[in-house]
């Protein structure tokens, strides 16, 4: 029996092929396949091609179930850049791949754990939306935060 192949399309219109039995680790894809057979291309409008390549690499892994935990951890560890991890987490969220998302979020949390606030903002590209006065008021409040 020949294995059925699905085609995924990234935000920048690149196509990726993946075998169906591997792709259905994503709950989102599984539901799509169930509904309409997914004969055509599955578009993923929020995932760019680099991230999708990573997700495909992850889905294509050939690990025994007992080694899987370690593999996910290592997989994420090797891509220890916060922007990459966030993209990956977001893609995993969209595709509903729980293990990958958990691992990516855990890694991000580990990385920013010891950051200063400024570093957190920089790493996650969050703008500080407070005026210096507000900032000071809150700092005073949390000086004795516990």
């Amino acid at each position, binding site marked *: 029996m020949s294995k059925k192949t699905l085609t995924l399309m990234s935000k920048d219109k690149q196509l990726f092929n993946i075998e169906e039995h591997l792709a259905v680790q994503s709950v989102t894809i599984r539901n799509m396949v169930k509904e309409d057979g997914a004969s055509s291309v599955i578009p993923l409008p929020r995932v760019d091609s680099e991230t999708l390549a990573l997700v495909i690499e992850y889905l294509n892994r050939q690990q025994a179930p007992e080694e899987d935990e370690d593999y996910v951890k290592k997989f994420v560890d090797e891509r220890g850049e916060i*922007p990459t991890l*966030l*993209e990956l*987490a*977001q893609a995993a*969220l969209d595709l509903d791949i729980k293990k990958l*998302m*958990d691992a990516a*979020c*855990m890694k*991000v*949390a*580990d990385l*920013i*754990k010891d950051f200063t*606030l400024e570093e*957190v*903002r920089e790493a*996650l*590209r*969050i*703008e*500080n*939306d*407070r005026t210096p006065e507000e*900032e000071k*008021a*809150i*700092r*005073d*409040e*949390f*000086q*004795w*935060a*516990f």
Partner: protein
Amino acid sequence: MEDLPAELTIDILSRLPVKTIVDCKRVCKKWRSLVSDSSFVNFHLSRSPPTGFIFHQNVNHLYYHRIDPGILRWVEIEDKIVDDRRLHPDPPMNLDLNRVPIFQKSLISQMGSVNGLICLWQHSTQQDNTFICNPVTREIMILPSPRYHTQEDFRRIFCGFGVSSLTGEYKVVRTFKRRIPLNGNQSYRITVFEAEVYTLGTGQWRNVGRVPYRLHGSHVPFLNDHFHWIVSKMEDAPERICTFDLNTETFQLFPSPPSEAIQGNCIQRLAVLKGCLCKSDTGGFKFTIWVMKEYGIKKSWHKEMVITKVISKWPVWLYLDYIYLIGGLKDGTILLVSGTGGSLFAFYPRNNTIEEIETFDWLEGGMAYRPSFLKLQNFESERIHIHAMVRSLGRVPHWLDDSYQPFLNGHMHSHVKDEDTTKKLCIFNLDKEMQGIRGFAPTNPGKSCLCQVIHEHLCEVVHDFKFTIWAMKEYGIKKSWHNEVVAKQGMSSYLVAYFRQGKTIKDTKLFKCYFTRMTYCPSFVKLWNFESERKWRNLVLDSSFVNLHLSRSPTRLIIHHKIHDPRMYRRMYAPNEPGILKWVEIEDKVDHHPFTPRPSHEP
């Protein structure tokens, strides 16, 4: 990259240590509201492992024998005690109970902890109060007074605190001793044990009836929706453990471990170790831990470990002390506290060694603790205190008369009592938090006087052979001080009214011997609307109404702090007597029978 979706942010944040999450509220407004949201609170709670212990340290009580509430110290412990085998306390994670006004000069015990909430009990011959506290949100909730105070023997009260897995209700249960007449005959009384339950949010204690057995054990562990007590040796019961079901609110016997003959006096105690009920026996020169592997199955009780001979520099502690089991770590290490010295010990079963953890001493207790962001404000019926610590602004450069410091024009005012200076006032600017001396006071050095605010003017009330009021007509202008009132009459100790027109004084014959008098403007300003507390429940009173009422509120009320009244005469010297706050509403002028005291408010 676009904004992180809220789902991802919540996921990442909830994996951080609690202290970091508190810090992260400052990253941006969105994060702040995310962390305060109940969906985050619940998500965090469902995910956070119970990786910490909260220790109650009290040097002042245990060493100096002072009445002192002590400090709650929280440590996050990973799977094992790290390399140098010391727990690392983080000073910002301490909750100094002495800084909480309601706890000052009292004794506090930790009674239990679930979902980041800690049940505290304040006890003495005069006090019997129960509190729920969340150190993370800095909230302290006072439960209403229980129906029965058992002041004669408070050691007979055993509190437990738990949460129902079915309904999510938080309940406090306390058993207490009560003396009731036998067959209606008042002269013969028998002692019975009863229990009361308080469900958070309901505002009242419910009596759940008699406790079928005499119980003991000051620590009431909570597990699987049940509280657990040891049945007293005096009772003839087939099992030696009694439980109270949180959902059905009934007492029942519970399978206990097989009894063993132990030489001498054996002290038994229940605890929870790695999610299992366990019982520790101290006595007969050994410390035995029994563990119930499967909850409720009698056969699953087994002897987990016996500590007899320990390799330690403290060879004698085991035989002399009453030992508490605090909990276990993932690597098998067991934390113990010795009752008399309050020292924390770690027992390593693998190499059978015991070690004192010197960073924690003088402990009154300790328990496993899982921090959470649960807000006590979400319960509707109880009084909540926000534990905001006092900020220090440094030394006050003058010796100030601190009896009463009136507030006017954004400043606090107080007399300077330094010897060599002429009469001066020290003012403190509340906005800038700066203090300075102003030669405000009228030139009458050496006389005892009181600083007051009357009719929006700063006034000095001099009370010696006659009664004089100086008023400052224009704030801050020294020349505007003038002699407003002089009355030659001596004063009685009653509240008096002074009539400006006739320059006469009339005795009201009401309210004798006041400690403090001050004017009071009633308002609906809600204390919990202040920023540090951040409670945005559906406001019963809208803030625009509160402000409008405050701006219009025409009457001035007088508030009295009554230091003694005839009823209190006998216990006048009771140092903890707080007195009574009474308020009266005074219209524009005083009539023949002017003062009608309103129902008193007793704080």
